[in-house]
């Protein structure tokens, strides 16, 4: 059994506010294997981006990691000092943000930004760094890379800019790339190109990808495994094929039902009634119980931990706890 590249164990992220402590990520655990693509999916506010920020150590104060561990190749990285964490960023973990327009400093050329990043992590000459930069730019699909590398970010179109961002995130050869909604800000026609690029280029380099998105369609096409987050908690995790075709957690099932497909017979799309609770109003027991058709008495009292279903599949739902499910009383919501 191979060692996981990244291991998140019982992660807890809190935000102290004037009105009390908000728990944005509550006891979330998952692993990412070397070279695999893990999709992290959920609604806005479910905690996906925060998980990515916590992993790379860029949580904005007052948010902080209040519990759990994050291990990169077996070593803890959540408790490193600032300088040690800085060395990891870029070199071992890279990140791609959502909006390519604001991700690049408008006052520097692409060449300057690439070369600076490369030389931060590798002790090579400027000329050598430039050669690498041009090659990388070419690889991400920028035509006439040698010439365009000296352009400023505003000279590129949206899709091209995101390619530059990908190049920047990968230029120090990280082992894990966290892509936080990398295509949300792009034109639809360009989205699939960028997703494919991320997948290919990471596969080439053997880098794993944590693909954060709210778009299940992207996950279906690109990811190997998927983790579903709800209200800061892990609802379900497993191989993509299985989770999509045979979702076990009622929330995941609801999500699948709400995706339009060409083969679906339904006259209407299934919609999950209600809305995800706000962080300061999470119900007792399972966070999904107000909206769940299959909720029963236990669901309202205790919070379910992820239950191992075999083959790397886990579901956080009382329905799959044999002992509990046997004696359940259905409660109509």
């Amino acid at each position, binding site marked *: 059994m191979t060692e996981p590249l990244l291991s998140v164990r019982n992660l807890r992220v809190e935000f102290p506010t004037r009105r009390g402590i908000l728990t944005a990520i509550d006891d979330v655990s998952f692993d990412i294997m070397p070279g695999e693509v893990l999709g992290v999916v959920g609604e806005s506010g479910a905690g996906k981006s925060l998980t990515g920020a916590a992993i790379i150590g860029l949580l904005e104060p007052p948010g902080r990691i209040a519990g759990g561990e994050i291990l990169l190749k077996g070593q803890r990285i959540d408790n490193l000092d600032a300088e040690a964490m800085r060395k990891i*960023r870029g070199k071992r973990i890279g990140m791609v943000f959502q909006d390519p327009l604001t991700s690049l400093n408008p006052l520097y050329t692409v060449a300057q930004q690439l070369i600076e990043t490369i030389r931060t992590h590798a002790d090579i000459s400027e000329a050598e760094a430039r050669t690498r930069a041009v090659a990388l730019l070419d690889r991400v699909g920028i035509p006439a890379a040698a010439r365009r590398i000296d352009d400023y970010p505003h000279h590129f179109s949206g899709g091209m800019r995101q390619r530059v961002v990908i190049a920047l995130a990968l230029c120090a050869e990280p082992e894990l790339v966290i892509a936080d909604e990398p295509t949300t800000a792009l034109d639809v026609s360009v989205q699939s190109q960028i997703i494919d690029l991320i997948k290919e280029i990471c596969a080439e380099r053997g880098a794993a990808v944590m693909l954060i998105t709210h778009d299940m369609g992207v996950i279906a096409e690109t990811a190997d495994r998927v983790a579903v987050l709800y209200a800061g908690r892990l609802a379900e995790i497993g191989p993509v094929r299985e989770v999509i075709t045979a979702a076990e957690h009622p929330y995941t099932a609801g999500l699948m039902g709400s995706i339009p497909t060409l083969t679906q017979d339904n006259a209407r799309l299934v919609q999950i009634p209600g809305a995800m609770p706000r962080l300061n109003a999470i119900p007792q027991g399972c966070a999904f119980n107000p909206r769940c058709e299959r909720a029963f008495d236990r669901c309202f009292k205790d919070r379910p931990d992820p239950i191992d279903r075999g083959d790397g599949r886990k579901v956080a739902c009382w329905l799959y706890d044999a002992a509990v499910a046997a004696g359940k009383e259905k409660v109509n919501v």
Partner: protein
Amino acid sequence: MLAYIIRRILQSVLVMLVVALVSFALFRFVGDPINSMVGQEATIADREALREQLGLNDPFLSQFATFIGRAVQGDFGISYRLQQPVMELILSRLPATLELALVSGLLAFAFGVGFGVYTALKRNGWLSNTIMTVSLIGVSLPTFLIGVLLIWVFAVELQWLPSFGRGDTVELGSWTTGLLTASGRASLVLPAITLGLYQMTLIMRLVRAEMLEVLRTDYIKFARARGLSNRAVHFGHALKNTMVPVITITGLQLGSIIAFAIITETVFQWPGVGALFINSVRFVDVPVMAAYLMLIALVFVIINLIVDLLYYVVDPRLRVDRAATRH
């Protein structure tokens, strides 16, 4: 780019013409030039003759044209009060003001940027809070009060620095400078601080606000996500992006320094154009007022022009033509 420059220059000329008009109106209609120039004994016939001689009965436009013609050559007539050519008076006192303005401007900029960056990076330290409080007081204190209090502490009580005048100056061609003598430099200290303090607090608050904004941007987050060092992030990226608006606003401040010099020069009896102007207001010495107005307008217009060009050089997004020729 050439088109841009030409357009800006034309705009500047237009502004100057408007100011010239105001100046001229001042010159011509405020007070009676004849009364100011001749004694009480002059007869009405004499005054009429003088009127005719000075062209005061000509149509407005031709008088205006003459005014402009003379102004361009630097001829603003004779000061009512001092009976000397106005241009001569102004030129002889200009080096004093310019030197003061430049030194205090540099001081204000250096300390303003320094403090601004520090209080942005170390938002909650005691030193930051102290600096911010002092800056608030600096904004509330009138310039003249700062000057007077400085004189009291450093010239009267401690006797470290002189309390008025420029000290010994050295002539370099048509310029006189106080920078080359010890007493000249000593005399420069208090006035420069007085003049620069207000500007410094403005710059400091501006730099701090801008830098805090920049530090929240995505590209700074991305730079950190790439593992760039704190120094590279703060000074290579954040500072450079902060400076773009700061430089332009500071440049515009330079003009107002020259105007604020009026107060400082009065407090320290500094022999500059500001003191000249104040006296001209007191005694309604219109030629000097008009000339000072034109001079200040010229300075502002030139500074605005330079700042616009500087913006163009510093911010690549403004170089539209290059982008238009790409894809």
